[in-house]
């Protein structure tokens, strides 16, 4: 007897967040990266529409990295000492379709760059590379509230994805993103209730829910990945059942979490495998945008995505 496959149909849809604006849309980007838009759980192609593949953003900093693993430094060679060269290597050599710029150099402990210098950096980078940008603060709330508004303004009209808004500090960032036409990352500490609450708080300020990507906060393989996995799965099930306040695509900071682990530091190969497996596991749980560090890991994951979507 033939087995009958039970297919689930969902009433909800995940919002599509478009990152980058081309000339026609008032920006200067060469391409637009779309994430989200699906009407089914991850990879269940027969249950709905999955219009966009998971995307990879290469993580770069506005300064030469201080605490990167030797293996990462080797992968980029001399370029890593010059952030602009680093960005160009990602785009030209590794074919990054999206960059994730972390303004680490503005952090009080990492050089304490002024907001003006940060804004200038963003303008120059936008001039030098043409792929869409994700722009992140340094994680210091006080400084980010000074830096991010001017960085947002420097990228006005480029429809970047800017983060991270957190429950205790979101108003300044939301106001900038609204004024300058960007999208926002809403970060919650592996907590679905806070993720939902923050999305509501942001939309109450007038930013459409369709312009939010959720950073659920992940752990690398072996470091609580399964907690993030179940939070993401639960949020996605609720969203597909019709909860619009959770129907945002997910951005996952894979590289940053992976290269903290002692396993990744054991050997170059193991680090790459660790980053690859963390990313591919998160694809299974619904990650839409993976921010990665090692070009070889990014290549592995990119191939994996192609294979998953070959059908």
């Amino acid at each position, binding site marked *: 007897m033939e087995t009958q496959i039970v297919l689930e149909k969902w009433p909800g849809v995940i919002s599509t967040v478009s990152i980058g604006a081309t000339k026609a849309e008032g920006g200067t980007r060469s391409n637009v990266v779309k994430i989200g838009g699906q009407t089914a759980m991850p990879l269940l192609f027969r249950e709905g529409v999955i219009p966009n593949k998971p995307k990879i953003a290469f993580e770069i900093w506005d300064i030469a990295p201080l605490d990167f693993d030797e293996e990462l430094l080797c992968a980029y060679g001399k370029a890593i000492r010059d952030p602009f060269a680093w960005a160009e290597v990602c785009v030209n050599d590794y074919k990054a379709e999206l960059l994730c710029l972390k303004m680490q150099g503005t952090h009080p402990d990492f050089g304490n760059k002024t907001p003006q210098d940060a804004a200038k950096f963003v303008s120059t980078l936008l001039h030098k590379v043409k792929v869409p940008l994700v722009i992140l603060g340094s994680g210091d709330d006080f400084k980010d509230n000074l830096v991010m508004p001017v960085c947002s303004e420097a990228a006005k009209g480029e429809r970047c994805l800017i983060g991270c808004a957190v429950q205790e500090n979101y108003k300044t960032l939301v106001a900038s993103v609204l004024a300058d036409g960007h999208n926002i990352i809403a970060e919650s500490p592996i907590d*679905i209730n806070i993720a939902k*609450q923050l999305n*509501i708080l942001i939309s109450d300020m007038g930013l459409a829910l369709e312009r939010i990507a959720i950073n659920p906060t992940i752990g690398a393989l072996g470091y609580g990945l399964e907690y993030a996995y179940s939070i993401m799965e*639960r949020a996605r099930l609720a969203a597909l059942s019709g*909860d*619009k306040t959770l129907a945002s695509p997910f951005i996952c900071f894979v590289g940053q979490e992976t290269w903290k682990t002692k396993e990744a530091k054991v050997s170059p190969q193991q680090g790459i495998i660790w980053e690859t497996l963390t990313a591919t596991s998160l694809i299974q749980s619904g990650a839409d945008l993976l921010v990665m560090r090692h070009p070889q890991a990014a290549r592995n994951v990119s191939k994996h995505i192609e294979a998953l979507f070959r059908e």
Partner: protein
Amino acid sequence: MFIIGELINGMYSNIAFALKERDKKIVQTCALEQISNGADALDLSCGPASKNPLIDLPWLVEAVQEVTDKPLCLDSGKPKVIEEGLKAAKNKTIINSTTADIEKLEILIPLAKKYQSKLIGITIDTRGIPQNKDQRLELAAVILTHAGENDFPIQDLYLDPIAMPVNVAQSQMQDILGAIHEFKMISDPSPKTVIGLSNVSQGAKLRSLINRTFLTMAVASGLDSAILDPNDKELLDTLITAELILNKNIYCDSYLEAYRKK
């Protein structure tokens, strides 16, 4: 919970006036207010005072669908009136209602199929209102069997165990709640369940409190849908909270607002 707003009914003076004067604005304002407060569908009834429901119900349908595409629940005991409403409707429809009488089922089930309408089946027949849970289940089985035999999709059938006023039929409240629970188990796929909530508090003094307490208990018994006053904010807040406790929605501090953003 699928919320059907009950306020467009000729037994209310504003709607009776609108019907008499053919004042669409009054009906449309009432429709939009209910929707903004959380109604997923709107019940339309000309009420007992209407002299010509064959014309009045389609007029209500047309007035309301000018301002919303929400489903319309066509409320009349007369199949001919319902058919006139169905003819006028562009929105999705729910027939409110058939009884368990064969002669009614034989007209309304084909009508629901023809117009692709959902159908409310009230567990009542010419013998009158059932007095306990078993009688309700018996009548539910009559409706379900008839629907099944005539290829009506069971998931589009809403069974109503008839909510009785607590000051009239206090001893039946548990039977009604029990019926809601057991209606879901008498067939697979299971039918949906609905009640006309305001009946529960008819003639009582603390109407809103009785309504929301009953609704909470009914939701816990598995109720899918209710015809109620969506403008009663405390009632809606209670409903949203009851569903939260049943894990139907994910908690956040602003869960009331989150539900309303849906």
